């Protein structure tokens, strides 16, 4: 089994954050990285940048979904993305805490949780963050993997630094 997500290749990431800009412009028409559904975290003195975005876990009840007090979560009919019904969301923040990789965020202004819901429409088959990336770090593709304790940004950074240092002759 596998499902389509925004796959990331952190070893190529330059940390330019054009994905964050594109995401916020897509939602509000403005440059506002704090509301971006994808975010770039840097590690190891800036050597490594890790893009963090929802893995749209395929398991029947993903961790965020499971803890929701109001049953706000469902799946998008077209993309199968895990989506939040923001009208129902009471802003308890439980889902934000539950995500093993930290890919759900909380907007203190609207008091609602938000996450990547795969902006694929009839007019655009590729999400705007992917279009904006100048370094081919993001790909809209299938993966068999859900989010897990093993795929937190810290752990991804750690395994990448090992690989990079190992690669030094």
């Amino acid at each position, binding site marked *: 089994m596998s499902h389509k997500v925004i796959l990331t290749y952190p070893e190529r990431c330059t940390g330019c954050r054009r994905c964050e800009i594109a995401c916020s412009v897509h939602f509000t028409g403005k*440059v506002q990285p704090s509301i971006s559904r994808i975010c770039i975290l840097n*590690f190891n003195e*800036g*050597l490594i940048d890790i893009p963090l975005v929802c893995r749209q876990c395929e398991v029947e009840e993903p961790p965020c979904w499971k803890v929701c007090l109001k049953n706000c979560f469902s799946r998008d009919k077209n993309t199968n993305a895990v989506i939040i019904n923001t009208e129902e969301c009471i802003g308890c923040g439980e889902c934000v805490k539950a995500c093993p990789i930290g890919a759900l965020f909380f907007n203190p202004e609207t008091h609602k949780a938000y996450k990547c819901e795969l902006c694929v429409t009839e007019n655009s088959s590729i999400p705007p963050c992917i279009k904006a990336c100048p*370094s081919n770090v993001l790909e809209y593709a299938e993966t068999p993997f859900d989010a897990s304790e093993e795929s937190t940004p810290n752990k991804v950074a750690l395994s990448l630094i090992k690989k*990079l240092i190992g*690669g030094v002759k």
Partner: protein
Amino acid sequence: MKNIDKGFVGKILEIDLSTHKTNIKPIDLEEVKKYIGGKGYATKLLWDYIAAKNGQINAFDSDNPLIFATGPLTGTSLPPSARACVVSISPLTGIYNDSHVGGSFGPEMKFAGYDFIIIKGILEKPSYIWINDDKIEIRNAIDLWGKDVYETDELLKQKHHDRRIQVASIGPAGENLVKYAGITFSLHHHAARGGLGAVMGAKKLKAIVVKGSGYIGVGDSEKFEKLSNECAKSIESDINLFSMKKHGTARGVSWSNNVYLYPTRNHQEANFEYADNLNGEKQEEKLWIQTKACFGCSIHCSHMGIIPEGPYKGTIFKGIEYEITDLLGANCGVSDLNAVAYSSMLCDKLGLDALSTGSIIAWTIECYQKGILDKKDVDNLDLKFGNYIDINKLIIKIAYRQGLGDLLAEGVKRVSKKIGKGSEDFAMHVKGLELPGWGIRSAPSMGLNYATTDRGGCHQRAFPISYDLGAKTPDGKILDRFGSQGKAKVTIMQQDKIAALYSLIACDISTGTLGTKRLIKLLNLATGWDCDEKEFIKVGERIWNLSRVINFKNGMTKNDDTLPKRIFKDKISVGSGIKVNLPEENFKKMLNDYYKERGWDSKTGKPTAKKLRDLDLGFVKFEKGNDL
């Protein structure tokens, strides 16, 4: 206060470290318009803060403001929009200083709601400032004091449980008031030139941490986004940027060396026999493993690497920029790429300006070789060109002001004056700012630029070298490379234009691709202004004249518009057995042309009252006994 959606977000934040009081005021767009923003408006703010003291202030005075500035294009969707700058009075030169950076700090300032942050006063104990939108706190930094900039950045990220904060911090060099200590932004972006890190150190301010939840809006967002997308496409396709993306600024090393512009062994020559070891191709092939970019930029001219072998094996470092390949490489006679990478990393992490550091070390080596300094004077180091082991020991001594380092921390102008014995003749600085990595005997217009810039010897205020090398001037002339004719005009043209561009704030790497016309269009779409190219250049001239006034008020004289004696006296080879210097009379001719062209008094070098009025700078006070 609401976001004004004009490229500017609308607020100026003032923080007084002595009283812990903060003050937020709206920006006055009519007033800002005269200076665009960024460097320009920060220059006006600097003037306003020191005007009460007749424009004169000591860099370490409590009242010397440290101004963090962004421009109307900073943080917008335009690809290179990361730039911010810091403006203050420099402890190294005693005059005006503006130092520019990329990274993500400038945009984050605006997300937090502030176009400008002005910091004055002095803290009682080491602290840092935490700015999170409207919440502004001064927090204890005792545990951070003494840490290098990488440790500081990481500790702050852990302390705030947030890897998305942006940090501007100083290292040990700034804490120890090394006169050329820089401020490090977002880990690898240094406002290094002119010692503003020591101004922060004097204020006992270890860091400024910013996180903003807001946005940056522009006036006409539809047209702005369209043009910004067009710019992004130009950047992706411009063939001139391909080598910049691949090899960074160090792409210029071999070219510069081949045309005798590459200062070598303290400017004794302008061609380094091992230059090809240090160029961007070599760095890419041997050292780099990652490509890095500033906020929103698809050029990604920056690189990161790990030293693969030798005594410094395993060290993570940021790709060596062109200037540093020269100042810590060729100019110190070091040909080992791994060693230069390590020296560069040391300066970065200790918070030293690598250019000034390299320059003063080269001067020290020459003094030692000439017997001006003896073994005891140099702490028994084995100082010779190329001995990177002892050069790296000296870098650490400077940052911590140990032994000889305490002396060298004062900058080459002060030190050479103290040591004397002819060492001033080869102290390579203008107005106290050590020269960057472009030789000037083979490019006299660059020499004129160094001699006349607002902050001392600097290559970023104009880059007229191409006119020395035969490019047609805007009025269709081809200039004699080593001559003085026509050099003033092209230098002034670039100085004014760049002062305006640095107020947007544009990035040097991209302006060639985007072009001034498009940038002005973006400025107008963002702000709703109707600035044309003529007005744009005039703003640049206004900024240039105002900083000039600040410099005169702070003790600069016309005699400081000069170059190191070595440039006038000592010849360098420029190939085919030809040797050249820049004869002093040629330089003086260029300088006279320059004053005339600028409308400045040729006897005093000061802007005339008429010039200041023409530029709408009538508020600059004229007093008896001080004809400014």
